[in-house]
């Protein structure tokens, strides 16, 4: 059997198998973190584009020990990214940006983020810790959904440290800077 024929014979199943078992990169979910530092400018611009009315954009300010970025999904009308924690668990917090959010049944508490109103709703503290925190502001709403394992309950404050907000104007300035002034948000 000629080498070409032998190659063709095995190439099809090989491509299929490699794609199936080694094709994790084929997932549509993005793994590019929306960091607050300029490195994440492109991703931040995309996040800002997802809700063009939002005055603020959520981003990852830093990673407290044991936390890391898991996934990002951005489409028109919504951005969602998740963080994993070695103690609070996989997808321990889901951060979303939407034009609006439902805060019915939530308690408003003073917000540490200027220009926003903060709402908290505790869902469960029996076994796992589950809660929803929403920041409502002009043209948008950023929501944190906590789903912590029992031992991670005390890590809520670390999330506040990990997630930051950027003003749209600041993201716009980054875009202008990177494009040499030719593009704007």
């Amino acid at each position, binding site marked *: *059997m*000629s080498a070409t*024929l032998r190659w*063709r014979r095995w*190439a*099809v*199943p090989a*491509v*299929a*198998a490699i*794609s*199936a*078992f080694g*094709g994790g*990169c*084929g*997932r*549509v979910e*993005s*793994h*590019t973190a929306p960091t607050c530092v300029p490195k994440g400018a*492109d*991703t931040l*611009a*995309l996040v800002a*584009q997802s809700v*063009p009315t939002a005055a603020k954009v959520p981003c990852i300010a830093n990673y407290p020990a044991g936390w890391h970025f898991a996934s990002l*999904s*951005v*489409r*028109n009308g919504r951005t969602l990214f998740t963080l994993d924690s070695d103690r609070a668990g996989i997808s321990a917090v889901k951060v979303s940006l939407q034009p609006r959010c439902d805060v019915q049944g939530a308690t408003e508490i003073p917000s540490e983020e200027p220009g926003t109103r903060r709402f908290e709703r505790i869902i469960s503290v029996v076994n796992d810790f589950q809660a929803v925190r929403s920041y409502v502001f002009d043209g948008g709403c950023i929501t944190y959904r906590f789903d912590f394992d029992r031992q991670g309950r005390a890590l809520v404050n670390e999330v506040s440290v990990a997630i930051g907000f950027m003003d749209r104007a600041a993201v716009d300035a980054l*875009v202008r800077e990177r*494009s*040499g002034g*030719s*593009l*704007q*948000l």
Partner: protein
Amino acid sequence: MFVWFLLVVTELGRTIDRIDHAVLEQVVRWRTTSLNSAMQRLQFLGEPTTVLVLRWAGILSALAFRRFRQLLVFLGCILVSTAVSALLSEFLGRSRPLGVEIIGNWDGFSHPSRPMVDISVCLLGLIYLLVPRGDWRSRAKVVAGSYIALLGIVRIYLAVDHPTDVLVGIILGVTITLLGFRLLAPTDAFPITYRRGRSAHLDVGGPRGEAIRAALGEQLGLHAADVRPFGLDGSAGSTPLRIELADPAHPALFAKLYAATHLRSDRWYKLGRTLLYGRLEDESTFSTVRRLVQYEDYLLRIMRSAGIPTAEPYGFAEITPEREYVIVTEFFEGAREISSVDVDEAIIDDALGVVRCLWESGLAHRDIKPANVLIRDGKVLLIDVAFGEVRPSPWRQAVDLANMMLVLALQCDPEKVYERALLRFSPDEIAEAFAATRGLTLTSQLRAQLRQDGRDLISQFRTLAPDRSPIKIQRWSVRRVGLTGAVLVGGLLAVLLTISLFAQASLL
């Protein structure tokens, strides 16, 4: 990849951004309310649901037409294009068009345009899965091209993609699909046809027909004027052909075209038998098509020299080394299948005499069925010796006798067949033959004709012959247990692989 790398590390990316922006700004100026509405409706052309429908259309049609190779290539193209576009998208991280109003739906980074990649792969894949080469394929490509172009215009108009995202998406999708199909399932070797027939039957027109004629002339000195399929209904393991020679004085010849597909069928058939019954004698598979054909040629010669009335061999010719061979024999002009003639005592005697001759020569035919027993001028002719065996076990020879008696009894009384059989075989030998008879030992054609006949001929013969307990054919061995385990594990892995493939390709 190199170009994309350059884009990242040089100023070229900014230049392209500026050009894209200029084009989009111009397009935005052309926007009108009614056009916006029309374009937004046309977004469905590249929606994930449309892509999913097209992908499943390709998969199901490939399954329906049993185009498994093309199906694997299609799935591979989907997976590779998804992976490549995801990698590029992550690597470049390009935002959606800036400075213009986006009025359509989008998802993720913009470069390359994923809907354009997906739609290009789907449409081109469908063409290579379904449309035969020629005018129809050319027309289909024009239709697919128009669809892709329209979708590109829609996405640029809505400013969900930059023009370069669309362009690169199309290039990526088309290139991956073309490369996949042309390299791994080339139309020359795996043509798309809609002629009815078994998958074992190969197209003998076009380049293959030419190759057959050339090989017959060069290797066997037979100058064929015409080569055409013949008696396809009676053959499942090869493509039977009738060859008319250029010399009108020379009688027509019979040939069988064997290819790798036949070799694989033979392997699967024998694996199935091993799993169901254990390792019956001579269930070892052929390693190459050449060996399969060599074996049939050898058996033809052995049988002829033993006095078995089978076709005179003319040798075999190589069409594609190790892949396709054609074996040539005498054509029994005027011969008819035994099921279409009146069977008298002379024919019965002759047929049983052939079995006796096989026994005495240490041979077994192993495929005695109505289609392989021909009658010409009142004489029995035995064809298709590919499954034959030299030095078979008494069990195998007994099966030949039972099958021949059943074939004869389908055309007359079993009592008469039994009575004539006693002239050549002892009652014990006949009893042993029917003690060995099982569903496994009957060919599918013989089984079907016995069902159609309605008489329980096997029981009638068993009643006529001396009492004999059935011969067990189940053979258990470590190999059979191991093989069964391996097949089960392999099947499970195949299911997991399929699920994984489908999940990766967003088909679930």
